């Protein structure tokens, strides 16, 4: 009986959503073959996919479980480093670990395994930090996880760990998104996949998270978010549920970190700062806390706006002989911050609130039916 209650029937809205997503993938694949690879569009899609995954993973923690964690950058760092350390080709290790005699690790794992390993390492650290920290209340938890990210950053920069982490120096020359392109005999690209593959990785991971959210476990998490005490009274074990959610979220943040490494082509602990966590948090807020669709949309919007559409604000622009005032380096970020403040203050629901794509479609269907009914 419980089965029939919990099992959702797959309605037309879900199918339509799946078709929309599929169409987007096909569109990207086609676009990639015909638009020059140097276009900003692909940069935005690659970085957007990475950020979408990280934002959704943060949403799992902050939006669906109510654990206000600000440790995302730390977990991404772990994922990125593990990926980098295990995938740098042996031939390149002497160059990369130039001050550490080629480093300690002298084998190479396939990119896929290294990526998963990065996620697992992040989850393991999450487990460790979760033991003392998850008992804390919302804002204490936030500041503790934030502090944890800072500790991780210092640890990975420590000279004594240099043979493994390359100290504070860059990891590089590992496989990147461009290595997904299929190349012909003479090195020319025959099929472009460098944008599609990251989108697929992010898509699969986000798919898993969605399944998780819609499972019994996911509903337990939502119960915890809404009222811890009531949830506990209903027989949900708070500690283990929270810990598991935190670890899963960190796992995907780790995978996202590995993707970021692939996107950036270099990894350096220095760049995984609190500012990065804040940026991801703001993406989640703009998208709507508690909406996977929202996080995805706002990731792409955020990246596109900051890397592409608003770039012109940073440079002098002339309309005829008139020089547009105020435009110079940094103005883009000012405009950006103001938009974010407006969203935070006046559109607290973000783009999607807690709604998902199928919900929207259901709404349209209902409205459509309503209209039909009235017209008849």
């Amino acid at each position: 009986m419980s089965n029939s209650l919990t099992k959702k029937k797959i309605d037309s809205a879900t199918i339509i959503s799946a078709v929309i997503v599929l169409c987007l993938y096909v569109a990207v694949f086609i676009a990639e073959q015909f638009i020059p690879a140097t276009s900003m569009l692909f940069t935005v899609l690659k970085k957007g996919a990475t950020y979408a995954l990280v934002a959704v993973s943060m949403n799992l923690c902050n939006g669906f479980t109510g654990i206000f964690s600000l440790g995302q950058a730390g977990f991404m760092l772990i994922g990125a480093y593990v990926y980098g350390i295990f995938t740098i080709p042996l031939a390149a290790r002497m160059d990369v670990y130039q001050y550490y005699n080629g480093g300690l690790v002298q084998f190479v794992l396939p990119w896929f395994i290294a990526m998963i390993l990065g996620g697992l390492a992040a989850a393991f650290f999450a487990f460790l930090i979760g033991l003392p920290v998850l008992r804390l209340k919302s804002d204490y938890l936030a500041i503790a996880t934030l502090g944890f990210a800072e500790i991780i950053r210092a640890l990975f920069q420590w000279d004594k760990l240099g043979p493994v982490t390359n100290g504070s120096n860059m990891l590089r020359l590992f496989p990147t998104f461009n290595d997904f392109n299929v190349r012909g005999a003479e090195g020319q690209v025959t099929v472009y996949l460098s944008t599609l593959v990251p989108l697929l990785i992010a898509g699969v991971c986000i798919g898993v998270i969605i399944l998780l959210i819609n499972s019994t476990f996911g509903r337990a998490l939502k119960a915890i978010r809404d009222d811890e005490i009531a949830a506990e009274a209903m027989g949900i074990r708070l500690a283990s549920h929270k810990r598991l959610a935190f670890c899963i979220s960190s796992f995907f943040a780790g995978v996202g970190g590995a993707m970021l490494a692939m996107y950036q082509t270099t990894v350096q602990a220095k760049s995984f700062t609190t500012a990065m966590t804040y940026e991801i948090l703001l993406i989640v807020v703009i998208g709507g806390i508690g909406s996977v669709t929202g996080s995805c949309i706002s990731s792409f919007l955020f990246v596109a706006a900051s890397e592409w559409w608003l770039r012109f604000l940073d440079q002098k622009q002339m309309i005829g002989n008139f020089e547009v005032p105020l435009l110079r380096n940094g103005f883009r970020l000012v405009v950006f911050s103001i938009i974010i403040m407006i969203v935070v203050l006046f559109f607290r629901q973000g783009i999607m609130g807690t709604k998902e794509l199928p919900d929207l479609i259901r709404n349209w269907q209902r409205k459509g039916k309503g209209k039909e009914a009235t017209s008849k």
Partner: protein
Amino acid sequence: MWNTVFPYILSGISVGGQYALIAIGYTMVYGILRLINFAHGDVFMVAGIIMVYMAASGVPLWLCIPLVLVLTALIGFVIERVAYKPLRTAPRMSAMISAIGVSYTLQNLVLYITGGLNQIYPTIPWISDSVTIFGATTKMVTIITPFLTIILVVALVMLINHTKIGMAMRAVSRDFETSQLMGIKINSVISMTFVIGTFLAGVASVLYFTNYTTVIQTSGAMPGLKAFVAAVFGGIGSIPGAVVGAFIIGIAENIIKGLDIILFKAGILSGPVGLATFSDAFTFALLIIILAVKPTGLFGEKTTDKV
């Protein structure tokens, strides 16, 4: 041994005093609103930038300092009214996110105005002079900071304990709704808290930047975080706690920077191991430890959650 360690302690006391002044702003706001004001460190930085621009535009220094303090307090007031007041009934997370948004906005605004370049802080006579104390040479400001901090804290504690507005603040931090029912003008109490907090951050900025002389948009982030840790460490809501916490953190982080050589001279280490890398991380490790062991901090009151 003393000669080896003393200069670090001196640096630590100086920076600790500056953290203390910032930490008070955090702890007061948290005490009343239960809000981590992430933008507080950035207000501190903005105070530094205002000083740079004001001095560059030819305002005499003796006039600059009070003007900067007043303007900083005004900024604190405006931030509260614009960014936090509308969210007072919203979940606590919203206000914290808004605080992060304000921090992001202030940093970007300063990036835009300064072009992202380091600004040289004006040299304030007398407190910038070098003095020698117990064999260590340092700036006068290093010596002044702890005393000034203590004077300001005593004044603040007196204000809170013996004036009407102080009593109102205590009442609001104890019970928000009841004090409202008692006829306390919540809005003016909260504004006053922000004004005092940012005013002290302004004082801290004058001391801090006189010591370290350059200001950039990210200058406030780390001192802000550390001051917050100090506030938590001392027991959030407790002003003496924040001050003690700040001094401990200031001294500890400077000793860590010199730990290699101290341990080396004491014969414990045979060579440098690079512990200085952890000077920032140590602060946060301390935070996690204190939260795990005694979540209310050194001087915090035991609170019980109402269901």
